[in-house]
């Protein structure tokens, strides 16, 4: 008998269930087909502007830093300023993401921008985000052609360009957005929820940032307003 049959047999004996139990199967199908939300914290169920403010407050509390810019065109300048301010070399490894490619990098002639997955020698990465969860100041990044996962973990400094329209209240809203993009029951290879920079408290319970992942997490927030949110098609407007 295979391990699979032995284990499933033991589970069914323990639960006193026959494999053809229709009621139990129906309960499982229902839960898979129409997932129900648990209690959603009230703090996440606020208007969009309040969600943006909550996201900022929670992310900063978790030792991320955040700069707001009015337009996407301002991102290269904000990134260059951040690097200068922290005495970091003016070099970036950016995600191969058309949206990042389209930014006016020419405005920062001192900044070198390479594209692709992270190499061991990369000091700073720049990525986009798929969504952000205001509830706990958490970024949601999905792996894919335009988003190598190594950029989120290997470099010492991780800079994320986040649009205000990507900020949602609770995690469940972010999952809805993933389902809308990938189809029900389908996920990209990796979903990374990131809340602040890497840390450890393994030595005498004192928190130290930069254990193995990035020492710094910086968010450049583009205030593009609440447009293009899920459910807000171009026709029905804000």
């Amino acid at each position: 008998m295979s391990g699979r049959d032995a284990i499933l047999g033991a589970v069914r004996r323990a639960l006193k269930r026959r494999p053809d139990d229709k009621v139990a199967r129906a309960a499982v199908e229902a839960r898979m087909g129409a997932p129900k939300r648990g209690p959603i914290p009230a703090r996440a169920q606020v208007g969009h502007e309040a969600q943006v403010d909550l996201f900022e407050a929670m992310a900063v509390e978790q030792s991320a830093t955040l700069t707001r810019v009015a337009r996407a065109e301002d991102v290269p300048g904000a990134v260059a300023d951040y690097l200068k301010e922290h005495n970091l070399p003016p070099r970036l490894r950016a995600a191969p993401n058309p949206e990042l490619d389209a930014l006016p990098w020419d405005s920062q002639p001192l900044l070198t921008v390479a594209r692709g997955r992270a190499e061991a020698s990369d000091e700073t990465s720049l990525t986009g985000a798929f969504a952000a969860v205001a509830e706990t100041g958490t970024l949601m990044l999905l792996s894919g052609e335009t988003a190598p996962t190594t950029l989120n973990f290997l470099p010492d400094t991780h800079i994320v360009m986040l649009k205000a329209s990507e900020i949602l209240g609770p995690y469940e809203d972010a999952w809805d957005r993933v389902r809308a993009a990938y189809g029900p029951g389908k996920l990209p290879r990796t979903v990374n929820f990131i809340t602040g920079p890497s840390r450890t408290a393994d030595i005498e319970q004192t928190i130290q940032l930069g254990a193995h992942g990035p020492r710094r997490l910086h968010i450049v927030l583009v205030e593009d307003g609440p447009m293009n949110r899920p459910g807000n098609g171009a026709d029905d407007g804000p």
Partner: protein
Amino acid sequence: MRSTARTFKENAKAAVADPQLRRALDHVKSGFIGKRAKAAARLPEFDALRDAARDIKNHTLDHLDLYLERYEQNVRANGGHVHWCATAEDARAAVLEVCQRVGAKTVTKGKSMISEEIALNDHLEAHGITPIETDLGEYIIQLRHEPPSHIIAPAVHLTKDLIEADFRKEHTQFPEGRSLSEPRDLVDEARQVLRDRFLKADVGITGANFLVAETGASVIVTNEGNGDLTQVLPKVHIVVASLEKIVPNLEDLSTILRVLARSATGQEFSTYTTVSSGPKRAEDPDGPEEYHVILLDNGRTQMLGSEFHEVLRCIRCGACMNHCPVYHAIGGHAYGWVYPGPIGAVLTPALIGVEEAGSLPNASTFCGRCESVCPMRIPLPKLMRHWREREFERHLSPAAVRYGLAAWAFLACRPALYHWLVGLEMRVLGALGRRKGRFAWLPFAGGWTRHRDFPAPQGKTFQALWAERKAGRAP
């Protein structure tokens, strides 16, 4: 790992007498309790979330066979492999088989209690494969050849001086005169040493906090980012997980995640929560080429449907041990096996036998703090009591305990005799102790009087006072 749970009493005695351990354990009391309380107080929905989390796991366990089937189907649809392993031995063999097939020399590891449970590192080493623990706490205890002493803070029994000494001994590539006195220095040095290991590893092994049936995904929750570097860089990712880690869908996952970090470290959310589905896709620039899940039973199906069923709701947050006065006094190693604290007192006898670990469920005052903070509302004291009952039924408790309990039961079933005897005893003790008001020594009470005096009874017994009071009130 080899169990020393049988010698729990000796282990505990040695632990209590260890001043270095006392200093280290002070951090548990001062840190975890306050942080959890603050995080719980900040979220008005916290208790409602605990109820919801409990209900999710109850539903899942009641349909475990169907969710396991659905989970496996989705892992395969994602291009991954599921290895069903009934025993620790099966799981070790399955991991080794994958490592050997790809010619692995070094394996990086994220923190995994299941890996400790199946003693994976020793097995890999015995076959010429070098396992490298990458969680800082796990790395430190691997250098020291010690088991973890806490399920989420494996090196909590150590002070920084000891860690500094280990690093000086092991990291001989660095100058001797370097400063290592601060936690910051130690973290930086470990980061530097392990970075190279991450890049060179052939296989990455992680545990899983959850397995999601809806999508066939495994989920790890970490703060350091080591688990992510472990799984994204090597060409093979192996997940070792026990079968009760299943949750139905992403909404259920989100609900339980809301109570996990708050209960564990008092964080609003852990730094990294990573949901992984299968190997890299054709369009992915990075990620592993192979994805394997070692799905372990190792005694869980024996607990399912038994009086220990509820312990399968555990999400391994560590809140029970963080709040346990016994754990505070003796630390994790005294428990003698992988899982310390109240959760260990329930789980260990189930996994390695009550003959071996019968002392653990007895090492509790039943103060109830563990149950009061458990995010999954597991009635830990009740489950420990079940083990005591089993131990008694199987004649495993010591003769003195058995005869003592039998004598007490005889009296307790005869209240008139009981009251008369106790009343007599109190009068005798009261008369004997009248001069000093206390006893430095009493027969059959050595366990008490060795550490403190026993006060001499004064006046009447509670029962006598109660009877008088009732009589006085009556019209």
